[in-house]
């Protein structure tokens, strides 16, 4: 019947228009949808860095020789270190304890004489291990600089280094090893979780709380229309967040986008459906904003942050936790995002992850449709 179709369209249009008016007038919705993403992007793009730069290092040189001067000079040119010189070990240790420096490099008296003998520990490195992550980075950098300096020295003297293997590192996809290039794409998944799950769960719970859903169910509107009336606006809002994030990533943070934009948009849609599905499911179960907000943060936002591989590498998690990450939708999307941004359209990575997302979206929507209240119970 065309009359009933006209009315159906009118109802849906009314619901969507209402939702946009409410989003526009409610500062907290706008904050979650737009201000928070920008804030997170700026924070992770500029503030948080997993790279060690300008690490203060204390030097203790027992006997100055041309070799020791050359070696310390190699550090002075590095942007990773900031050198401080100490007269003896005691002074350096004191500075380390005071946290003025994070590492001590000591060159013993026999540094020059031992330099080209095999397997001889010619330098001593003491690293402040309080921050394990930085400590590991520093020891890696010191090792790297040491190797480089040695081979450089050998080449200058026309001899080859009497070592069996020289590790020559080359890093692919993120050759500058910039953590922002890796963090910013992953952050998009977090931002879409915020609008998709958290915001959606809260606004539906708000309608329960204020009794507006009760009044609405009593009109000829169907539950399917009510759900669609929520899905469409928040889908658009979520995609807006995606576009905003991509634009900021590419134009502000110079993150390379090696894959195609359309793949991002398509897989973004899939992920947003997963997030919206979770948000709707939460709001059907939790009928007040506080519980819905808590549930959304614990069930969607925190897992997306911690278990998606966005910051913490999934492969280095204990097996039980690794198994658990398969339930986190963001895991699949983070993998896609990092691949599409930094490597390109690598289908063997994109397809299985996209399939997992599609499956999750189907499960959540199936559950939401099954649990959706036809009445007040």
């Amino acid at each position: 019947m065309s009359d009933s179709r006209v009315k159906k369209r009118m109802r849906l249009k009314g619901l969507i228009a209402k939702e946009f008016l409410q989003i526009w007038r409610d500062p907290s919705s706008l904050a979650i949808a737009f201000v928070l993403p920008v804030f997170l992007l700026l924070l992770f793009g500029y503030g948080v860095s997993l790279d060690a730069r300008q690490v203060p290092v204390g030097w203790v040189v027992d006997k100055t020789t041309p070799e020791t001067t050359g070696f310390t000079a190699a550090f002075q040119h590095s942007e990773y270190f900031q050198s401080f010189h100490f007269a003896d070990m005691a002074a350096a240790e004191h500075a380390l304890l005071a946290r003025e420096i994070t590492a001590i490099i000591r060159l013993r008296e026999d540094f020059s004489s031992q330099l080209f003998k095999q397997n001889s520990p010619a330098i001593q490195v003491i690293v402040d291990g309080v921050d394990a992550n930085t400590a590991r980075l520093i020891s890696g950098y010191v090792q790297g600089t040491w190797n480089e300096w040695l081979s450089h020295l050998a080449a200058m003297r026309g001899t080859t280094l009497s070592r069996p293997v020289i590790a020559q590192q080359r890093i692919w996809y993120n050759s500058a090893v910039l953590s922002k290039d890796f963090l910013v794409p992953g952050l998009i998944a977090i931002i879409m979780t915020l609008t998709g799950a958290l915001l959606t769960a809260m606004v539906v719970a708000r309608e329960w709380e204020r009794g507006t859903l009760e009044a609405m169910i009593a009109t000829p509107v169907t539950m399917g229309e009510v759900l669609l009336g929520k899905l469409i606006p928040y889908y658009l809002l979520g995609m807006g967040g995606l576009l905003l994030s991509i634009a900021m990533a590419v134009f502000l943070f110079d993150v390379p986008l090696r894959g195609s934009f359309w793949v991002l948009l398509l897989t973004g849609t899939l992920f947003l459906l997963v997030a919206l599905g979770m948000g709707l499911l939460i709001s059907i179960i939790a009928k007040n904003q506080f519980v819905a907000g808590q549930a959304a943060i614990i069930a969607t936002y925190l897992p997306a942050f911690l278990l998606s591989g966005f910051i913490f590498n999934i492969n280095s998690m204990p097996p039980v936790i690794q198994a658990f990450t398969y339930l986190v939708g963001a895991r699949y999307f983070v993998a896609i995002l990092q691949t599409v941004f930094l490597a390109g359209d690598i289908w063997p990575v994109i397809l299985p992850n996209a399939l997992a997302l599609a499956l999750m979206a189907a499960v959540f929507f199936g559950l939401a449709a099954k649990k959706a209240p036809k009445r007040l119970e």
Partner: protein
Amino acid sequence: MPDSRSDQAVFALEFQAVSKCFIAGRRTVDALRNVSLALPKGTVAGLVGPDGAGKTTLMRLAAGLLLPDSGRVAVFGRDSSNQAAQLRGLIGYMPQRFGLYEDLSVAENLNLYADLHGIGREERTQRFQELTRMTNLTPFSKRLAGRLSGGMKQKLGLACTLLSQPQLLLLDEPSVGVDPVSRRELWSIIDQQVKTSGTTVLLSTAYLDEAERCMEVMLLDEGELLDHSSPDAFRKKVQGRCYRVTHPDLSNRDLQNRLSGQPGITDAVIQGEAVRIVCDSEDSVNAALLKTDNGRTRIEPIAPRLEDAFIELLNKRRAPVRQANRITEASVPVADEEIIRVDGVDRWFGDFQAVKRLSFTVRRGEVFGLLGANGAGKTTTFRMLCGLLPASSGRLQVAGVDLRKAAARARARIGYMSQKFSLYSNLSVSQNLAFFSSVYGLSNARRDDRIQWALQQFELEAHKDANSGDLSLGYKQRLAIACALMHEPEILFLDEPTSGVDPLARREFWNRTNRLAATGVTVLVTTHFMEEAEYCDRLVIMAEGDILTSGTPSEIKRQARTEALPDPTMEDAFIQLIQAKRP
């Protein structure tokens, strides 16, 4: 939209042996038990009953928002369980709090509901004009619904519900927290709707005078339909057993206190310049009066009200209210000492002035009332008096202490019960009492004494280990007052203690408050029930942050006396004052 079947049906709404239960925590609550009723088309029916009687459940079942566990609900002959979709077009349902989107404007709310009901463009414009004119909302069409007063919200909610021209109108407590003027306007809209469209109306209400205007009244208690008949039939039940009692020396409060709970007297309330009583029989009246005072009381029969029958029916189903610790000697007289002084107080919230140039004084031992609709500034005034909110300007003095200088010192001498009771719902009754006494720094021995006192005085002994969240509203209210009294304050502030509480519990509350005042405690109370003003020694009536008038209940009512209205009620006086203020 009306089709042949809805025309053929005799009854607009029919319940056949309907039962409905809910699971709350580990308990199963029978919200409705075996309820059968039938409303002929064109009826205006009122649903009354104490708090938790199952009124909202009944409304939701009628609206098809809930399905019965057993039995059948039919609207215009159609079963609500399998023809819900068709019925939605015939029903207009307004839930409590009106179901409005507060962040949408008046016009946007109307538009949304017009969309939801699929109302076409031309019809829409016409309906909007009609409804906004009828509700006087035309000048406010751009205002956000959240910024409207309670009365205007209610009218907008009603307009949204009437958009689709429903044949059955279901209104769940439409007048809670709405001022008397708006309540009268609501009734004129309903009357007009019934007259022009033949709409059937079912509305639940806590106001029995409102139920009196209906053609049929249904009384619900603990999920059972006790009675369903015309208001007249209800009144006939107590015909000839209602009296007006006066005493030359005793105050109304003392007289009421002596009469209530006497054997043979089912109900005693202060009404105007007298105490109104309902007796078991004509003989019991004389016996009771003899006991009160050797024949100096004057007594005359008066016409019964719905409320008299209502209270009698409910009282029969309950254990008689024990009147422990009754005071029989005359109460401590009101001292001539000003204990609260409010002088030119203003309070602004941003660019909104909640309280305007407020001035009044309260004497020690008085029961002092602040009357007004929601949003009149009562709660703001209370918060300032309790030192919880600073005044923007003006002077506030409580128990001789200037609140601007020593709010904490004043607070030790006052007890405050907020609107939502502020109890810890997952602590037991005695744990709540213990907590509040330790907050006020009571020593161990004194604390035990006070807890014992509270359990006894408020009859909470039987519930002392129950979690306060599981108590009924009436008991919660008692516990909340007890908690506010643990440190024996000189002044007790009660913010809307009777809001949402049924007439029975309200009677009990006022009995208790009167006893408390008789011991010399000053009581300040806010309420939006106009008739409760009768229990106050003096009161102020507030509207939109202003004091409209102040004085004793009889002084205020005297102002409204006209030839047409020789014995005005407090509500009449209020309406007159409001109308005089509005241009």
